[in-house]
């Protein structure tokens, strides 16, 4: 089982979390008048990296907060976690 460090509650077992997909995917603003290709990229295109991956997790059975985690997809090692809005 992964031990995921929640930035609010500290290290907790994976069972308490739900996965939220790739982090830092920015929604195009209406003002930028996104093209269909840009809109498609926002909705469907993900990096699917081998290696260090920034991803969102939610401590759903805990403090219920979303936050970000940097995980190595080859080893599952978690390098760090940080709150939403931080880098």
């Amino acid at each position: 089982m992964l031990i995921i460090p929640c930035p609010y509650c500290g290290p907790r077992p994976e069972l308490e979390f739900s996965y939220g997909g790739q982090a830092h995917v920015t929604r195009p603003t209406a003002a930028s008048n996104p093209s269909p290709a840009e809109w498609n990229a926002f909705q469907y295109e993900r990096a699917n990296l081998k290696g260090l991956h920034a991803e969102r997790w939610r401590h759903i059975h805990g403090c219920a907060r979303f936050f970000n985690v940097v995980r190595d997809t080859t080893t599952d090692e978690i390098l760090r976690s940080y709150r939403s809005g931080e880098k």
Partner: protein
Amino acid sequence: MLKLKAARTLPARASALGWRMLDPRSCWSLRVDLVAAAGPMSAADLPLAIDVCRAATRGDWSALWLGPDEQLLVGLDSAHAQLAPRLAAALDGVAHSIVDVSHRQAAIELSGPGATRLLAMGCPLDFDLRSAPVGFCTRTVYAKAEVVLWRQDTQRFQLQAWRSFLPYVTGLLALGSQELTAGI
């Protein structure tokens, strides 16, 4: 499934083995900025848990830290009607939300030397006193059910589960107690 059903028919024996249902209590979900609420709550003689995953008690009421802006207030059923006006008066001018969740969940008390082992059968947290000291509280899971756990003493825990999950949680506790007693 059959085993669970059998376990459910033995509540009297199970209660002798270290867990029991508690009387209904008054429970409120409070969402508020902790920094803004600390002063007003203290002035109104109401508890507010500031430390992460710790409970605070003041008079008849306890506040359990569940999230950075979420508290569970627990008190006596007899004081239920008084809390909403007290809270509303105390937090006047502070953005907040109070929701009566008394009927949503029921409380189970686990006590005795087997309490941590019984908990560990369904909950993956570390119950060593260094990581979960007295006063520790958190939302977590018991098997597949979401529960609120509160360590009230070294060998006494309160487990709050939503009522629709109670047959599942108490069934597992009964089964666990039987296994511990049998030395499995």
